[in-house]
């Protein structure tokens, strides 16, 4: 995604996304109208309910944790000129890296070390494991792109399906304890991420029930790390060079295939961190379909956040709000399903990605006249 230099920065990173969002809301409002409900009422529930309760805010942050990881995944690849649509599959497969150390190593460590020591060590190994496994699942299409010229959009989409089948097999045949009816692993108690309510209980504070965990801080740290990587390291410079102009990169002695593979490894790894959060946090076990489309939301987040980590954090919060609001909405108005939020997300992607140009000439004209 090219940064547009001919408009004031605040228009580019503030006004255009806001405008796109407003139009997406209006279109979604029309959908609500067609269903036969009051769009104003729906909007009030969608935004009002989550924003005016502590639990609402906690849930927004919970969703945002996942969206930050997948948004960063998409944006790192963007900077190398790659459109990684495989965040969903990368986050899913990474569950193997998150769960396996927790199930196997965690017990062994717990038997020789005190719990206060074995838990953090196991968690750290799980963190690295999910990054690596997600990274490998990203490296594969990266390799195909770099060495074989297979387009990354196609391969990452297809690998999403392969990931789904692979995980179904793995969970069903490998992780599911014999005799267990539910298709899921046993509980991973040796690598247990506490949620906010459980942490609050220790201090005697009564907090609302929420899946929010301290992993939100790891997500923020990851956002900072991505910013640092892209703008403060040699590798980041090379990634951005390859993304901006491959011919110039070759002139500069940078090998685009090498950079493409490294970038896809990092990109997949970032998506993989979602598995660390979701599997060891709210779920405490490896189960089917836990990514729940967060990989795709990451595309919208990255587009809306203009591929900048700060923008991604803000966009992740917004989509967190929409996800939480959508759940509330489907509770309160029976005829509206949670999928309305998916419609809004889809519209945002449409306007930010496909129709990004639509308002650009108009705004350009406006600001030229003004100045």
């Amino acid at each position: 995604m090219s940064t547009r230099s001919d408009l004031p920065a605040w228009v580019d990173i503030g006004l255009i996304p806001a405008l796109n969002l407003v139009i997406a809301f209006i279109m979604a409002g029309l959908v609500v109208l067609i269903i036969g409900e009051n769009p104003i009422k729906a909007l009030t529930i969608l935004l009002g309910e989550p924003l005016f309760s502590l639990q609402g805010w906690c849930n927004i942050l919970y969703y945002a944790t996942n969206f930050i990881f997948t948004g960063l995944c998409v944006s790192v690849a963007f900077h190398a000129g790659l459109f990684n649509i495989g965040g969903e599959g990368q986050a899913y497969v990474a569950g193997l890296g998150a769960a396996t150390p927790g199930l196997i190593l965690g017990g062994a460590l717990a038997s020789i070390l005190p719990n206060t020591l074995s838990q953090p060590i196991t968690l750290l190994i799980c963190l690295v494991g999910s990054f690596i496994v997600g990274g490998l699942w990203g490296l594969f299409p990266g390799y195909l792109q770099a060495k074989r010229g297979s387009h990354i959009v196609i391969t990452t989409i297809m690998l999403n399906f392969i990931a789904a089948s692979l995980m179904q097999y793995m969970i069903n045949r490998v992780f599911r304890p014999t005799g267990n009816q539910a298709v899921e692993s046993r509980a991973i108690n040796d690598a247990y991420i506490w949620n906010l309510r459980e942490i609050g209980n220790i201090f005697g504070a009564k907090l609302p029930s929420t899946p929010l965990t301290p992993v939100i801080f790891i997500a923020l740290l990851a956002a900072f790390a991505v910013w640092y990587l892209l703008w403060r390291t040699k590798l980041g410079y090379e990634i951005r060079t390859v993304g901006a102009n491959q011919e110039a990169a070759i002139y500069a002695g940078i090998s685009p295939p090498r950079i493409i593979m490294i970038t896809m490894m990092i990109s997949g790894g970032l998506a993989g961190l979602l598995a660390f959060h979701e599997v060891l946090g709210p779920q405490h076990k490896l189960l089917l379909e836990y990514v729940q489309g967060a990989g795709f939301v990451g595309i919208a987040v990255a587009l809306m956040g203009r591929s900048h980590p700060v923008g991604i954090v803000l966009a992740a919060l917004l989509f967190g709000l929409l996800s939480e609001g959508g759940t509330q909405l489907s509770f309160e108005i029976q005829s509206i399903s949670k999928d309305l939020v998916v419609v809004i997300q889809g519209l945002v992607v449409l306007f930010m990605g496909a129709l990004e140009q639509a308002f650009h000439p108009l705004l350009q004209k406006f600001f030229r006249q003004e100045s």
Partner: protein
Amino acid sequence: MTPAIELINIDKRFGAVHANNNVSIAIAAGTIHGIIGENGAGKSTLMSILFGFYQADKGECRLRGKPEKIKSSTDAIALGIGMVHQHFMLVEPFTVLENIILGAEGGALIGPALDKARAALKHLADEYELDVDPDAIVGELPVGLQQRVEILKALYKGAEVLILDEPTGVLTPAEADHLFRILKQLRDQGKTIILITHKLREIMAITDRVSVMRRGEVVAEFDTSKTNVGELAEAMVGRRVLLRVEKTRAKPGNVVLDVRHLTWRDKKNIARVDDVSFTVRKGEIVGIAGVSGNGQSELLDVITGIAKASSGEVIFKDQPVGIKDSPAELRKRGLAHVPEDRHHRGLISTFTAAESAILGYQSNPALGKGFRLNRDAVVAQSLKQMQEFDVRPADPHLKSAKFSGGNQQKIILAREIGSNPDLLIVGQPTRGVDIGAIEFIHRRLIELRDQGKAILLVSVELDEIRSLSDRILVMFAGRVMGERPPSADERELGLLMAGVGKEAA
């Protein structure tokens, strides 16, 4: 008899560049008219105006005596003008027939158009010796036949005037001969042909009349039968005042770059660099002159490690440049490169000037320890270079695209010279650069030479080559036609550039 085409007082500017300065040309019907000139002489601009790609700022086009406004290529085609471009405008996966009806499909179903074209094609083939299998896939045809498809396309659309832009650049000599036979036949059938070229031989071989362009003006016109190669070369290159560059005699030292029998073949196995040998020594500037597209760019790519030689070797500072030596490796060994194409290679337009100013040098330890890139160091270095090379504005945070051509070039030159190289390779150092910056850049290059550095200069500006170089090599069709001192006669250099060697002249 009214001329087929008259261009009267055509004037066209692109920004500061005066591409066509009050050009008037009359082309008689039923003749082959050559337009010859160096790169940037304005030949292609003039023809693009005639074909409706550009609009002239001033002037008039008359066809068969009638003033016409040609606003697009569609207008031009409707008026019976066809153009065969240097780079073909063909859809490679389509068949010959499908390409020919392109733009003349005539309805939702292409069946009738295809049938009509098939009949017409047979007719054209009989009439002009233009045989092509109508069902062949264009991408699988050799270049000579592809060009024939382009000609057929124009004729099918009813072209009475055919413009050919450097048609033989991609052809083998045998294919070129065949093309000339076809062109003569077309002329004899009453078509008018305009041939744009920089090759004197072609002009002499097939044209009836020739216009010579230089710096946007028509400087001479001859009946081909009444002129000769020497006269044309002189008119083309001109007697010019040398740009004044003060320099002392070179004091060449050891050989830094030794190129031996270097050949580079493209994907179609055509030798674009053909058995080239030369040396560059310390403290001298070796200039490679030639019309662009004669292998200079490919030669630079091979020497700088961007492309790999097909055969032959390059020896830099007594060590051969191997297959594994990337541009980064060569840079570390002291080879700096100012690329010919500033916009696509030299810098990254979306990056800030400071970021562009480390392109290729990003792993220099002075810019940050380990994996880190110290932004302050990058900006400080860029600012220092900007001040030293008088880049305006001296703002490292400004986007690279926002600088003028001359200042962009200074940023690149500062970067490459700043790396303190043993060998500097410079491609088109002053293309699209204003006069003030040209002088500055020339002075810096001479200074660098006087510091004992070796410089290899490639430029299509003969003036520049002559004023800067200590030795001049002329390239034509991938080969070095000869070496001359800078004091060599312009006419002689012009002949070499046009592919006429000593033995032939």
